């Protein structure tokens, strides 16, 4: 990809991501929010591609845009019996929230700007999947196994909690 193309792609994807994220937050319809969330996830996965992390981008699409978004929509459907029109209201503290978020953004952005990043000049790995795979099963083996237990526990827990609803 040429540099200008990638620049353009970046801005486009960034815009998609940020705007759809704002949409998630601002939309009054929960279903719209969920769909915008999926769009946002897609934008993020596009950014991953730009960052040459294709594997992660794929995972992002699969898990986030696929599973998580669908799960959320499912949740919306199951708990929202009335109309969707005003299903996603905001509370009364938005002013404070805006202040805090704004200031936090200022702080973080100032950090981004002020930090002397020690960037590596090395090019990205052509194919990062083997590296990731090796890291997962060697260096981060314990974390990997732990994550497995985590998934098991989350599954069991989710079933137990959700089943309690079904049977009654």
């Amino acid at each position, binding site marked *: 990809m040429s540099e200008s193309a990638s620049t353009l792609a970046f801005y486009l994807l960034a815009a998609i991501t940020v705007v759809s994220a704002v949409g998630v937050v601002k939309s009054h319809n929960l279903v719209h929010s969920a769909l915008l969330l999926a769009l946002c996830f897609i934008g993020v996965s596009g950014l991953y591609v730009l960052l040459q992390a294709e594997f992660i981008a794929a995972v992002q699409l699969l898990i986030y845009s696929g599973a998580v978004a669908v799960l959320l929509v499912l949740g919306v459907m199951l708990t929202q019996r009335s109309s969707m029109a005003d299903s996603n209201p905001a509370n009364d503290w938005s002013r404070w929230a805006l202040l805090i978020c704004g200031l936090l953004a200022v*702080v*973080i952005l*100032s*950090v*981004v700007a*002020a*930090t*002397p*990043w*020690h960037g*590596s000049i090395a090019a990205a790995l052509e194919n990062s999947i083997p590296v990731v795979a090796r890291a997962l099963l*060697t*260096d*981060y*083996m*314990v*974390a990997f196994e*732990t*994550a497995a*237990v*985590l998934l*098991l*526990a*989350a599954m*069991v*827990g*989710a079933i*137990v*909690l959700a089943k*309690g609803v079904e049977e009654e």
Partner: protein
Amino acid sequence: MNITLLTSEILVVLLGILIMLFDVLLPRQESRRSLGMMAVWGTLGILLYTFTLAGPPATVYKGLYVLDTFAVFFKQLFLVSTVLALLFSLDYVQDWSRNQGEFYALLLFAVAGMMVMASANDLLTIFVGLELMTVVFYILVGFHLEQVKSSEAGMKYLILGSASSAVLLYGMSWIYGATGSVVLTEIAGKASASPAVLLGVALMLAGIAFKLAIAPFHLWAPDIYEGAPTPITAMLAMGSKAAGFAILLRIFIVALPALQDYWLIAVSAMAVISMVGGTVVAMRQTNIKRMIGYSSIAQAGYMLAGLMAADVPGVQGMLFYAMLYIFANVGAFAVIVSVSQQTGTDEIEDFAGLAQKSPFLAVVMTIALLSMAGIPPMAGFVGKFYIFLAVIEQGHLWLALIGFIMSMVSVYYYLLVVKTMYMKEPKDSRPLLVGSSIGVAAVASVLMTLFLGIYPAPLADFAKAAAQVLW
């Protein structure tokens, strides 16, 4: 690659899976108490096994997972608290119509997460271990299907917990970005006072402080303590908090000592706010679990004060305190479970006349609470003594003064409970029968609390050995 170092974690997970399997195999009507006993004995066995782990530090692979005295200390701490918490869970959950097997199994998974946290030497493993623990706790907090408060507590915990996890993770990402590494020992060499690192430090500190229920990141704690099933409240107060301290110490002592000057002030402010705020608000509580929730905020403040010393004695004091806090909590929660079994609620008023209905429980409760307050000859005094000794040595006399004053003020609300138990007449004359497993937990708590208070040397030595590993 030395997989045997993971034996204890593996055993805990296997035990959990085994319990789930047995749960399926057992006929539906049969009492699930056996599963609980299995968990207790299994955990006890693993605990005994951990005593063989003492030795020079060893790493699993490339130093990302270490088994040193520090890790062993915390693993034993988690296992001890689990054994004791399980002991009084038996009676608590036996009325549940189902899911008892899952309850024990999930609890064990949480313990596995804590154990991973204790050993993890990189941010990634720490994070995953932490998430294993907290996600399981989200579930367990909301696990009491018959109690409305339980699901509310679970939901609140999940929202705030996830947000704080995101903050912690965000902080980790900045550290990673600034240093190019997630391994603690490598970070130590590269961390400089660049804005990104400082931001990372701030966010991680906040994220961990949330798990520790340090003020002003504590707001979840009282609600969740009140709403959660009592054994889970106990585990949150004991295990979760201790695990939080384990990673706090690992990260800040091992990885970020160079920035000590920066985070110490924030830490001291948080410690003071916790000690004062937790104590002051606890004075006005009427629910015993909620009161212990607030008091645990103050307790976390005392422990955090030990970090102010940022040296071996300080950490030694924190470790010592974390251990004795287990025993104090076990005693208190065992009594709370017993009383609420009979009355059905957790209000302090329900303790009226306990000294006459069951003098044993009243004594256990008194000793446990006084240990938290730090009154000799209970262990709590020695713990505070170690911590503030170290703090004063580093010149923070004012902090010790605030700490001691607050611990004496805290006696006020602990004594309110004592007063209710001893002075008020019981509402009904039914004698309170103490279940055998609860009795065992209570006796263990009292004996250990008194033993550690009177003869702290063995545990103190152990804690010192553990603390020295970090340097």
